[in-house]
């Protein structure tokens, strides 16, 4: 889309810091080559943020890595120019430097630095954070150790790490996920880079932490005057921070323009689809479709706790017992969609697993009203009884790749519960399996295929078909959409809602994603550190929450309108900030 670039950006060339022209990066050679980056051109402006957005496999990360020539083998830059105007006003072509040459090494980390998705793996576990930052400073700048240390402390202070003088001597494992990412940013800022490349830096983080990091990057960008190349799959994040946006799919740049242009005047159908699928999750499908919730109780969760007992460590010191669930009580009504939302470690997945007895509860009752009217306490049910209940309560798992046995055909996988329950055999089993697959939109003729023949979204459908096999009454969906690309996410949610209209189903949806919860659920329970801090109707919780934690959570969710700048005006929850910080000072 070279013409788009030329028409949309009418700025003098002195403002351009990086000019990528017809970049091609292929994996492999010949006809079989995978064209990860296929003829891409874009320009980056000084002091501006360029977001490259795309789904998995679109080539966005490879584009970023090609700039610094750190593409994993067998990937190779096959053509094109990467002109860098930071040092030489006439431009330096990074694509033509040898990947191990002195020139490119003086650019990497010094002129252009990069932060990655996984802060755990990019930081060394055996050196202190301070040593790692100081190494970068000593490597590229001519200063002595004391000076480097002073600068490192200053950098940690700049990235808002509390008590930097003490924190500098801590090891990686003593930092939380968000603080690690801050430390990574501090390290990348060590040499005052002119460009910061951020490759999905917030994807592994909770939404409140993500908001903190995004705000930090934004603030640092203005004070340092850096250009930022931000790679993400999340349109919400894009809306918060982008000045310019490039949309990628299958190695091609489909559309390039300013944030306003892309969000309000996008022309490419794929861009529109991306934006729509995010905007869709800002509405409630339950309100649009009409809720089918009744006031008949289906399940009553009473005072459930899950406590991992204290374990003495090697030196004889005892760790305190860990309360993963602390006296949780909730009701599920027939035909209702209950959402359980929380950040990692809040106990939401543990609750889902305790309810279906994948994990046993340490205390409390899970009363389930069976189809025949009997009430069973799942927390204490025996194996035989549990097997009966498991016909009525089913589960859809998060990871569509791990949840299907790779050694069985999808027909065998979907038919397994029917076969084991003995309800269908032979031809009847085949018919019912085919029918189930058709229900979730997989052609029945594909039932002889193995799971590897299907994409992530299709596999999740197969998982749903398996859950439906025994005509369940309650389905627990544990992060069922979080492993999927955003365009597939709403499709799978719509499928579940369609099924609910046809079959009399209730759902418990466990998710960290407020958008998914808002779209899908009637009622929401917000969990924080093993406790339900607030529960109520989804619309109320998502628009006017009462509890301060919920307020912080909701306000940290990125919006879809570039003008909103929600994150700058977000709510901050102090208890959270304290809890995620490391213990500093006296031990």
């Amino acid at each position, binding site marked *: 889309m070279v013409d788009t670039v030329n028409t949309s950006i009418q700025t003098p060339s002195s403002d351009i810091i990086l000019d990528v022209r017809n970049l091609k990066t292929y994996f492999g050679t010949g006809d079989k080559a995978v064209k990860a980056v296929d003829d891409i051109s874009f320009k980056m402006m000084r002091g501006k943020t360029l977001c490259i957005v795309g789904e998995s496999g679109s080539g966005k990360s490879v584009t970023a890595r090609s700039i610094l020539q750190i593409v994993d083998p067998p990937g190779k830059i096959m053509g094109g120019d990467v002109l860098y105007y930071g040092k030489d006003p006439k431009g330096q072509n990074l694509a033509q430097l040898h990947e191990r040459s002195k020139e490119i090494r003086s650019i990497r980390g010094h002129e252009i630095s990069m932060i990655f998705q996984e802060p755990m793996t990019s930081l060394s576990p055996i050196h202190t954070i301070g040593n790692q930052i100081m190494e970068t400073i000593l490597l590229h700048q001519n200063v002595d150790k004391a000076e480097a240390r002073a600068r490192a402390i200053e950098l940690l202070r700049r990235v808002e790490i509390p008590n930097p003088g003490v924190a500098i001597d801590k090891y990686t494992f003593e930092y939380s996920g968000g603080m690690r990412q801050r430390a990574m940013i501090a390290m990348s800022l060590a040499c005052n880079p002119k460009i910061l490349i951020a490759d999905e830096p917030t994807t592994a983080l909770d939404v409140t932490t993500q908001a903190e990091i995004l705000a930090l990057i934004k603030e640092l960008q203005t004070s340092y005057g850096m250009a930022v190349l931000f790679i993400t799959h999340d349109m919400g994040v894009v809306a918060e921070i982008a000045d310019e946006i490039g949309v990628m799919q299958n190695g091609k740049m489909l559309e390039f323009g300013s944030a306003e242009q892309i969000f309000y005047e996008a022309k490419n159908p794929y861009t529109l689809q991306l934006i729509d699928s995010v905007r869709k999750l800002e509405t409630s499908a339950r309100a649009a479709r009409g809720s089918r919730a009744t006031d008949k109780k289906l399940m009553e969760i009473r005072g459930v706790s899950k406590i991992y007992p204290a374990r003495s460590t090697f030196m004889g010191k005892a760790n305190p017992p860990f309360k993963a669930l602390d006296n949780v009580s909730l009701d599920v009504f027939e035909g209702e969609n209950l959402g359980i939302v929380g950040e990692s470690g809040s106990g939401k997945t543990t609750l889902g697993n305790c309810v279906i007895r994948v994990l046993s509860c340490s205390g409390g009752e899970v009363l389930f009203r069976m189809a025949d009217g009997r009430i069973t306490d799942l927390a204490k049910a025996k194996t035989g009884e549990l097997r009966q209940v498991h016909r009525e309560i089913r589960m859809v798992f998060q990871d569509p790749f791990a949840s299907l*046995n*790779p050694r069985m055909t999808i027909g065998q996988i979907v038919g397994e519960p029917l076969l*084991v329950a003995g309800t269908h055999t032979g031809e009847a089993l085949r018919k019912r399996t085919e029918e189930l697959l058709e229900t979730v*939109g997989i052609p029945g003729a*594909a039932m002889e*295929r193995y799971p590897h023949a299907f994409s992530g979204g299709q596999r999740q*459908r197969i998982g749903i078909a398996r859950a439906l096999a025994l005509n369940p009454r309650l389905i627990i969906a544990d992060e069922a959409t979080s492993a999927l690309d955003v365009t597939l996410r709403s*499709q799978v949610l*719509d499928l579940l809602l*369609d099924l609910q209209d046809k079959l009399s189903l209730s759902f418990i949806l466990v998710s960290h994603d407020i958008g998914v919860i808002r779209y899908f659920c009637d009622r929401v329970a917000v969990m924080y550190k093993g406790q339900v801090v607030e529960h109520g109707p989804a619309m109320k919780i998502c628009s006017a929450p009462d509890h301060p934690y919920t307020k912080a959570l909701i306000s940290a969710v990125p919006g879809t309108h570039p003008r909103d700048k929600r994150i700058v005006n977000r709510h901050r929850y102090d208890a959270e900030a304290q809890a995620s910080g490391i213990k500093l000072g006296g031990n």
Partner: protein
Amino acid sequence: MSEENKQETAQVNMANLRGGIEYASQWQLMWARFRKHRVAYASMVLVALLYVVAIFAEFLSPFSPEDPSSRTVYQPPQVLHFDGFKPYVNKFTLTRDPVTLAPTYVKTDEKTYLEFFAKGYEYKMLGIWETNLHLFGPKEQGEKMFLFGSDKLGRDMLSRVIFGARFTLSMGLIGVILSTVLGIALGGVSGYYGGKIDWAIQRLVEFILSLPTIPIWLALASALPRNWPPHLVYISVTVIISLIGWTHLARVIRGKFLAMRGEVFVIAAKLDGCSEARVIFRHMLPSMASHVIAAVTLAIPSMILAETTLSFLGLGLQPPAISWGVLLKDAQKISVISNAPWLFLPGVMVVISVLAMNFFGDGLRDAADPYSH
């Protein structure tokens, strides 16, 4: 169903209705991957050939391994020549040094012609029908030739190496089967149930692994009565070797079970209502089978080496049984090594077969997980 759902339905490519990668089972994927590994593939062919040799030892050996001759003691190997298409070897004559009486062999111009499907000693093919046909041998019945030389009793080393393959290779296989049964049973119980059983079995494994193997083998083997017939010794030695060999397999299998117990598809199977036995045999074991086979293949070489070691030290199989270890026992003395280095040929065979099995096992292990990169 909404618009989008229909769109995605259409995306399932139904072009390949039969065959093709979509219908390939795990075994087919594994095979496709294994075949790309050239060295492993060649090794597999070699291993198969070795076992064929072991099975058809009588047919492939030109002479009886127990056919002594005082006139051919320590005769050096003869080189195969071709007269047109007719293969022949030059005859050697035995002369003695008049002073030291040391035997020396002198190459002559006389030729022993060879032919395929020659007649030789009588044997039962596969233990069923009697025949005297051999793959190759001297044209004139009663003539001799020694492609691998001869031993201290003038017996043909080639025939002896071929017969040795039968004992050594079969012992590797049977030992591994015994170890696998023990390993799967104990490792599986250990990994699936965990807890105290796991603790007990793992301590047992550690105890056995901490024992110095060779002294233990020696102690056990020397406890065997000297007057036992060869086949009983053979079985006992196999059992002794596998009593120690199962520990590594048990660890591999326990590890796999532990990893698999937490796999989401196993939890899903439990929620599907599968009984414990079905979870193990229908869902867990098939997923491990390829890894187990690879581990087993890699265990055979250590069995072969164990047998060779024991027999070499004189505590495994005893003559008249023939194994590569028994044959190597003749090559213990320095005088033998200097005068008749061809007695080391069984050792070369051990190296070749162990290497081939290691490559084969490595290839299998790499192929076992089609989703790894």
